[in-house]
């Protein structure tokens, strides 16, 4: 009887330890997963917003260059930023109530001429989505003749987006 009792006790103790360990591991994994899921959701949200904003920066009709011939609009040029136009957050699909953004040009000359609402400071931001696009810049509408010369020089522009 003693022997049997001893065996059952040891079994119970070992089982209890294993159950406690299992529960600990399960709770730990659940907590990590919940945190990871929250972080992933936040990152995906900012990432989606940033990618859309990056694409709109080089394709939105309101801010890209237009080629005109004798006052008649011929076509718009993707990846060509018209520096005479103001880059509003709405043009980049950024909700100004929820998100902040910063637009910086590689060349100082372009940065000085760049007119944008994306001038927020990302110092206190926790997660920032950053995207660099290659573009050409021009001030005002292009003539057909200037377009055909194909003498533009490419440069880089960086867009940063983060949640307020």
């Amino acid at each position, binding site marked *: 009887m003693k022997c049997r009792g001893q065996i059952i006790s040891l079994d119970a103790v070992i089982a209890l330890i294993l159950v406690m360990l299992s529960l600990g591991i399960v709770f730990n994994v659940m907590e990590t997963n919940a945190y990871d899921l929250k972080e992933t959701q936040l990152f995906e949200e900012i990432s989606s917003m940033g990618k859309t904003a990056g694409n709109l920066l*080089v394709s939105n009709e309101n801010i890209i260059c237009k080629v005109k011939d004798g006052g008649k609009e011929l076509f718009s*040029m*993707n*990846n*060509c930023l018209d520096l005479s136009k103001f880059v509003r957050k709405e043009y980049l699909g950024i909700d100004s109530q929820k998100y902040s953004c910063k637009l910086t040009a590689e060349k100082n000359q372009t940065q000085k001429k760049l007119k944008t609402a994306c001038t927020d400071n990302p110092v206190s931001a926790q997660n920032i989505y950053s995207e660099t*696009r*290659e*573009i*050409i810049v021009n001030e005002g509408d292009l003539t057909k003749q200037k377009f055909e010369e*194909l*003498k*533009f*020089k*490419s440069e880089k522009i960086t867009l940063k987006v983060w949640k307020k």
Partner: protein
Amino acid sequence: MKKVNILQKNEKGFMFSIDAIIATISILALVGMWALSVQVNENSNVLTQLDKQSQDKAITGFYSNGNGTGDLKDADFGACNSYYKYNKVTGNLTEEKFCEKV
């Protein structure tokens, strides 16, 4: 009684072995699938980014009448975009390819 004991002993041993093998195979398969899905997802993100970069270069290259740059030699993976340059004198088209690789 003796016969029952033998049967129980054999049954337990057999069951445990099968369980252990199935459990090990299942865990290995799950870990393998997870690692594979993470790798595929990461590669897909990098490729999307490379495609976007090479597309930007091809467009700005077209505007500046630039020559193509890069190829996919010695690359694990990469993306290329191109435009065709028209020669007014000869009437020929030349492909200018812009590649980004890792």
